[in-house]
């Protein structure tokens, strides 16, 4: 697929598999599934918007694809935001290569962001990461036009957000995107269910229906039973769960999260990150997540954009950024990271050697173990699925008493996935003294992590 290849937008449903399936048969499904459903939706949209609905806004737009065939949900092109009275002069100076501070000194304009370009893939959790003043929140607010950018484009599902008038952008905000705020932004005079239903109320959804939807999302974030409480009754973590439920309740495609967990205690923050990952694995929204916490960025982000002084310094996966920092700034940043939290089993696993197949006998097992000087060995079946593990003592006994391999295979072996953090792997290692198998979802053996790796992970500044 070339960069310029365009395909008709896929239809959104909650079910991601369904969604993926439809990417290939869009045209067919559109007429069968989408039309009647959307017709109902637009019934009440039209009455609120001079006869135009959300669908009319996106009608005929095409979702661009990138080189790997992934759909691009948001494309930001040369976006700049200058705060001040004479942005043109500031832009001119920036083009000449002046820094943010110099521009501020000469023109007294503040550079929010300058010449930022990137793509966010559909269903991706994209993190904007940087210290305060790096322009990450400004960038996010430009993407839903809470802040009006000075120049550049934000293309969402093939539609240039900058070209829209007030009514249309309002409609896009209602249906297409929503936002989670740093200080939760709950309305103090509304109870939880009405806070969550706010977005739906704005759209004109009838009360019974929107409360029902709100309750479903309150349950999803684990706050059942708090529907009638007021925000002041809730702790910070619970408040942000409400914020998340409110953002999800309108069933948007895109979620903007602005320092969403930064105001929470470390423990609660961790819980919320897990919660977000859980919800994201169910719903697969496109999420733009702003944070100043690198650990959070590395934990959550499918990809991370590191920002400094209103520009993007590096974009990449957590591994990219940790292993190949683009410049000194990034590497200084990265040095602070708790490596065990970020690095996953997939990074450290080795190709398994000395494996026993279920078709092989006990004597083969004994021979291999003697040759490799080990007292445990993993056993796999013909399809390379992990069957278990054997210990040399058991094998020896079975050989003497004339038993078979099946009798001595220990099935209850601790396994990890490729995305299991090394921190957890090390915890398992402490209680066992054999290599830990890394398996895929269908239990296929992918690799092993030997106990010697632990030293490598914990070692200071070792080559990753």
């Amino acid at each position, binding site marked *: 697929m070339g960069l310029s290849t365009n395909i008709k937008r896929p239809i959104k449903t909650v079910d991601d598999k369904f969604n993926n399936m439809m990417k290939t048969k869009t045209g067919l499904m559109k007429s069968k599934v989408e039309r009647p459903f959307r017709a109902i939706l637009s019934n009440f949209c039209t009455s609120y918007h001079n006869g135009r609905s959300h669908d009319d806004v996106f009608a005929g737009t095409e979702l661009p694809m990138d080189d790997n065939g992934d759909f691009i949900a948001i494309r930001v092109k040369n976006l700049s935001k200058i705060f001040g009275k004479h942005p043109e002069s500031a832009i001119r100076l920036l083009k000449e290569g002046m820094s943010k501070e110099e521009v501020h000194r000469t023109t007294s304009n503040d550079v929010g962001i300058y010449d930022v370009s990137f793509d966010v893939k559909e269903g991706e959790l994209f993190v904007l990461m940087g210290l305060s003043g790096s322009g990450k929140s400004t960038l996010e607010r430009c993407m839903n036009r*809470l802040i009006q950018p000075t120049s550049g484009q934000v293309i969402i599902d093939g539609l240039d957000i900058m070209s829209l008038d007030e009514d249309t952008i309002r409609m*896009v905000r209602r249906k297409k995107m*929503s*936002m989670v*705020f*740093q*200080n939760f932004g709950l*309305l103090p*005079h509304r109870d939880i269910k009405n806070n969550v239903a706010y977005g739906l109320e704005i759209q004109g959804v009838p009360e019974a229906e929107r409360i029902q939807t709100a309750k479903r999302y309150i349950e999803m974030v684990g706050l059942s039973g708090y529907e009638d409480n007021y925000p002041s009754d809730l702790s910070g973590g619970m408040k942000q769960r409400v914020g998340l439920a409110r953002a999800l309740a309108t069933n948007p495609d895109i979620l903007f999260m602005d320092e969403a967990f930064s105001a929470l205690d470390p423990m609660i923050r961790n819980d919320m990150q897990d919660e977000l990952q859980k919800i994201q694995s169910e719903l697969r929204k496109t999420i733009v997540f702003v944070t100043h916490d690198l650990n959070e960025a590395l934990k959550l982000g499918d990809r991370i954009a590191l920002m400094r002084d209103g520009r993007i310094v590096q974009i990449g996966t957590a591994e990219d950024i940790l292993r190949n920092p683009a410049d000194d700034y990034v590497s200084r940043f990265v040095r602070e990271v708790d490596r065990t939290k970020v690095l996953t089993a997939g990074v450290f696993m080795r190709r398994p050697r000395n494996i026993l197949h279920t078709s092989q006998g006990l004597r083969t097992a004994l021979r291999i173990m003697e040759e490799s000087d080990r007292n445990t060995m993993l056993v796999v079946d013909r399809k390379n699925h992990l069957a278990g593990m054997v210990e040399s003592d058991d094998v020896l006994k079975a050989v003497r008493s004339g038993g078979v391999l099946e009798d001595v295979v220990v099935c209850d072996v601790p396994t990890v996935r490729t995305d299991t953090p090394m921190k957890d792997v090390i915890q398992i290692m402490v209680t066992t003294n054999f290599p830990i198998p890394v398996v895929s979802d269908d239990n296929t053996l992918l690799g092993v992590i030997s106990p010697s790796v632990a030293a490598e992970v914990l070692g200071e500044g070792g080559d990753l």
Partner: protein
Amino acid sequence: MVSPIGIFAEDMVNFIERYFGWLLDLFKNILNWPLDMLGRVLYNIDPTIFIIILFIISILVTKRLVAPILISAAFYLIYWMGYWNSAMITLNMVLVSALVAILLAMPLGIWSARSERANPVIKALMDFMQTMPAFVYLIPAVIFFGLGIVPGVVATVIFSMPPVVRLTNLGIRQVHTEMNDVADAFGSTEFQKLTKVQIPAAMPSIMAGVNQCIMLSLSMVVITAMIGGGGLGQDIVYALSRVDVALGFEAGLAVVLIAMVLDRLTQAFKDTK
């Protein structure tokens, strides 16, 4: 001797009186309507029933027991001292004035909160209304509306409006920017933002303004009595002219009691919001 400024003011008043008299009459009738409606209730209700109803309302509003008892006791004291009829006239005027003032002031406050151009103009107007001595606008009020309760209400409205305007303005301006972002991010129209986010969030401040408005209305009772407003103010003016300490103190005490009752009720209302 009067300078051209005074002459101009006088000409203006005469001009308005001559050419807009019909409008003033209409205005007077409009104001008379709520005064008449509320008056019909207040002037005819039996004191016992009034106090019982007041007791029930204050229990509902304050959700306590002690305050409602004290509130009822205050009105019983007014009755016992023999100022019931005067108190009802005063209460009628104060409640209608406050209502009219709030109805006029809240839109002005919202307007000045949302328009940087309107804000300084409204602010200056409010300064003028609040600091111009009340006696001064009694003169045109009497010319326009004659003697009686209506010019009293007009003067009271002018005097008691500013705090509502100011505190509504302040309350909406102090709504956290994140709240406004919430409203915008979910695609609220300006009207939805105002009614669903800004006004509810500004409610404590607005209610403080309403409370101030009622207190200022009460402080006008003596002044309005000078143009025939009647009520407790008239008793006080009468006491003053006769240097009657006992009468003056009792009527004054009745004003204080009404003020305290209205204050506690509006305060409680503010807290429940």
